[in-house]
């Protein structure tokens, strides 16, 4: 049990610092390590857990909680959670301190203006990449397109639109 917890901690702490480009980049590594190397779960279980973590609120990398839970119960889930999020959060904290300390510096003004179009592009790209990454059916495309227009050009609250999207997909037969 302790051995599995240590394996979980080591694996996810390492992946936490390697997860450039968001949590999804290391998904294949998580799959390989947990299914093929450590045999904590089957390939089918991994896919189901991926779907659960995508649908649940919060970041998709919460899948590590499910992997940890299957491997070593609640203790495993908590170890996986801390290992996945603490190291990268520490890096962000240090970066944010430097950023904050330079509030008046010319380089930050330049960097802020330079990063703005990058941030806009990445926001749009994250949406488009998700369309590719999930098995988008025709009704799902319609839901995404209509939601995009409604939320970009009206002041409607996102939540009722998401509920409507869910109802529509059930009626469309999934």
């Amino acid at each position, binding site marked *: 049990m302790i051995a599995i917890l240590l394996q979980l901690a080591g694996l996810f702490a390492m992946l936490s610092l390697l997860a450039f480009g968001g949590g999804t980049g290391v998904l294949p590594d998580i799959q390989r390590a947990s299914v093929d190397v450590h045999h904590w779960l089957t390939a089918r279980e991994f896919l189901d857990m991926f779907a659960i973590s995508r649908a649940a609120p919060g970041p998709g990398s919460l899948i590590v909680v499910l992997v940890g839970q299957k491997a070593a119960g609640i203790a495993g889930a908590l170890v996986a959670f801390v290992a996945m999020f603490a190291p990268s959060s520490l890096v962000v904290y240090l970066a944010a301190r430097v950023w904050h300390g330079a509030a008046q510096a010319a380089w930050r003004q330049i960097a802020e203006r*330079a*990063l703005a179009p990058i941030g806009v592009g990445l926001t749009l790209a994250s949406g488009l990449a998700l369309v590719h990454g999930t098995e988008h059916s025709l009704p799902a495309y319609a839901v995404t397109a209509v939601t995009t227009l409604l939320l970009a050009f009206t002041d409607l609250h996102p939540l009722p639109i998401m509920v409507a999207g869910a109802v529509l997909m059930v009626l469309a037969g999934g």
Partner: protein
Amino acid sequence: MASPDSIEPVRPKAQTRPSLAALFVGFLIIGAMSFGGGLAGWIRREVVQKRAWLDDQQFISGFALCNIVPGATNVNLAVFIGTQLRGGPGALATLAGMMLLPLLIVLVAGMLYLATRGMPGGGWLGAALAGAGAAAIGLNLATGIRLARRNIRRVAPALIAAAITVGIGILRVPLFAALLVMIPLSLLISWAGYRR
């Protein structure tokens, strides 16, 4: 509240300093709402639109920064915003707030899944989740459109935003390679504009 940064014309009213409790509750709401993804959209809605803790410029440059460092971008964004507003304790408040409910929900969902594998009724639950997810993707796209309309006024930044959108979102260029080219280019343009 006037900030010393207000010499910079692009940030008019941000920088009200929220309490730790307000940060925790704000991000608790974000975490609870973000079914099926769309976290970046929820964060901007709460932090910029509703509460004006940050302005758009600070939000998107922070978002870009959070893409560069390792880790889930939106978790990074919570830590970044907490640190900006209240230092280390602020980062803990935003992180705990955003992750608490999702963590509990995933744990319960995991228990249910492991206990009820292969039972009927999963089909339409899956469809409902897919529908909410499809709408959540729309929230991210709409956030990108809003940010672009409000913050990009010149041709060169517009081209950079478009290149990243198409390159990463459609052509699947690896993030690292795309940023390795686009960040220096954007810095150069920004630096040239700053000197004028």
